[in-house]
């Protein structure tokens, strides 16, 4: 994991990095892949729960980035991350649409969703993670996208606003609503508590 100080510098050197990457500079491409591939993979895997499919999506995203950068179809204006994750979200949505149309032929399906044990996780966390993943499946697609873009993708609300074409205020409200629903799913007792508070 990177330190915060290093990360702040990353956004400042992004334009020259992208420019170098577009010309085929191997070091620049390596740096781009190192910075972003794990986040794209984590985002994809959170939804599909399958390593192979998540990697296919990740590779597909970076192939698109290579084609667009190499073809001069993208110019950096401070929105690279938003663009990258928009491409990633579109790939995930395409996959989900395919799965819904052809569930029997799909390589991954919502119905096959499985909770995998995180490596080196505390056994107590495993149960917690499983319950959390199950609770996330109760969210609508749009609410789940916000949760996954925020936590797995690591995007700010401003960046999510660019990815999803929604005002920041709307996303904050949806995020709040999604968290409430997750809390209520995980801890039904809180429903009682909330009802008492509102009376």
């Amino acid at each position, binding site marked *: *994991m*990177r330190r*915060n100080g290093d*990360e*702040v510098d990353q*956004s400042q050197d992004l334009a020259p990095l992208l420019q170098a*990457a577009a*010309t*085929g500079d191997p070091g620049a*491409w*390596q740096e781009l*892949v190192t*910075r972003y*591939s*794990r*986040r794209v*993979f*984590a985002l994809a*895997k*959170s939804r599909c729960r399958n390593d192979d499919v998540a*990697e296919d999506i*990740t*590779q597909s995203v*970076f*192939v698109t*980035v*290579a*084609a667009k*950068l*190499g*073809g*001069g179809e993208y110019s950096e204006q401070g929105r690279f*991350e938003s663009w990258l994750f928009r491409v990633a979200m579109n790939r995930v949505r395409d996959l989900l649409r395919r799965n819904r149309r052809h569930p029997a032929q799909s390589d991954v399906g919502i119905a096959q969703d499985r909770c*995998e044990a*995180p*490596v*080196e*996780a505390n056994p107590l*966390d495993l149960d*917690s*993670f499983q319950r*959390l*993943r199950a609770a996330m499946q109760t969210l609508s697609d749009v609410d789940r996208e916000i*949760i996954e873009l*925020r*936590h*797995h*993708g*690591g*995007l*700010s*609300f*401003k*960046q999510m606003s660019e990815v999803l074409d929604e005002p920041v205020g709307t996303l*904050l409200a949806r*995020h*709040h609503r999604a*968290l409430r629903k997750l*809390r209520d799913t995980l801890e039904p007792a*809180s429903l009682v508590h909330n009802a008492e508070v509102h009376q």
Partner: protein
Amino acid sequence: MNTHPENPSHDTHESLDAGLAVVDARLAALARADLGQTPATLESRVYDRSVAELRRAAAARLPVVAPALIFHVGQARVGSPRRAQWPMRLAACFALLGALAGAFVARNSTVATPTIATEAIRPQDFEQAWAIVSTALEDETSGELVSLQTEATTLDGRIGSAWSMDDLLLEEGAL
């Protein structure tokens, strides 16, 4: 609240009450666990495939240029426009494209004088064709095609294999 382990611009949601903040923190922990599960060789595979795509996209530009050049050469033909002369003129263009690749191989910033010709090409055809190709080439060398220099060794082979006489004749039919 939390900061994302891999993104400094990840902000917080300050208005969360304590109960929701706990859920938010759990989600952050889940995301960290998922990030920790990334396959060790993911980055190298993503790198290899994306760089291959970048090279493919760069190399693919020349065939895009080539038909345009052939068309221009055809438009600028000298003397009789009889269709029987098309193969000859297209062969001239083919030869010029070979010289074009040679120019990249040699990493010349200026256009090299073509030295490839066939017996069937009349001098005036060749000169006319080259004038047009070199003009187009000058435009291209100021831009993206310069980046193809590093791919020059494969470019030469691509032209040789992709632009066979069959292709040229097909092109003639299209014209």
